[in-house]
């Protein structure tokens, strides 16, 4: 089995009002050095071993549902899960 960690983030060209609000709050708290905040999503998938190539599977999942590629980018990491 594999654990896949998927990070979905808004594209650079898309405004992130939520991130801007959080940055504004951090600035008010005195953390003026924070230059930008972008909010995204983190998903963990556990995928059973099969004949299907895991990279092509994860890309398909991301394109079809997990990310909307009109506004979002995604990246992922794959870890082996050692069964007990």
């Amino acid at each position, binding site marked *: 089995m594999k654990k896949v960690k998927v990070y979905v983030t808004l594209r650079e060209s898309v405004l992130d009002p939520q991130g801007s609000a959080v940055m504004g709050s951090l600035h008010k708290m005195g953390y003026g050095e924070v230059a930008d905040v972008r909010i995204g999503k983190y998903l963990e998938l556990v995928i059973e071993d099969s004949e299907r190539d895991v990279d092509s599977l994860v890309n398909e999942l991301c394109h079809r549902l997990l990310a*909307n590629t*009109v506004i979002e980018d995604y990246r992922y990491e794959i870890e082996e899960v050692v069964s007990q």
Partner: protein
Amino acid sequence: MKFAVIVFPGSNCDLDMYHAVKDELGEEAEYVWHDSKDLSSYDGILLPGGFSYGDYLRCGAIAQFSGVMDEVRKAAEAGKPVLGICNGFQILTEAGLLPGVLLRNKNLKFMCRTVGLKVENNHTLFTNEYEQGQEIQIPIAHGEGNYYCDDATYNHLKENNQIIFTYADDFNGSRNNIAGIINERGNVLGMMPHPERAVSELIGGKDGLALFKSIVKQWREAHVSHA
């Protein structure tokens, strides 16, 4: 004319949509559950507002894979009128039946009020009962109605007159104040404002009624030749 009002788990404007078509227009309407496998007996498909599947992941993201959506696609391909309002619009963009996407409002607030809209194109089956450039008052109720698309898509929409409604004022950040767009073929309309909530003076205005009347008028002209 017989309309299907698609009901997803979390839809909450389905009753208003049904009321508009059935009680105000006197047309046939039925609620159709999201796992229905056959829409062939309906002449028009209505995707209501609400929070399908709790807006999990993204608004409309889960609903696009509901069983009924293959049938909605078929209806769209067959040229039947498909109208998505609010969450229905979000579902249509996620499903790829309309371009672009709806982002969080620029001020992060859920906004619920009546706003001015301009009819940008009255040469559609959804707007033929309006005047070109007419200003109408329609309620909005959304947290994620900030329409976004890239430059190429916007130019394409503009050139093909696919922008149907724009907001009189920018309150949610939508690109060029876009409130509603249509597909290239002209039979799939998505809009964030709620015309189904503006069908009677009793509830504050009836500027939305002409949209439903337009659909029925066009359908009658095409299907009832010897009336």
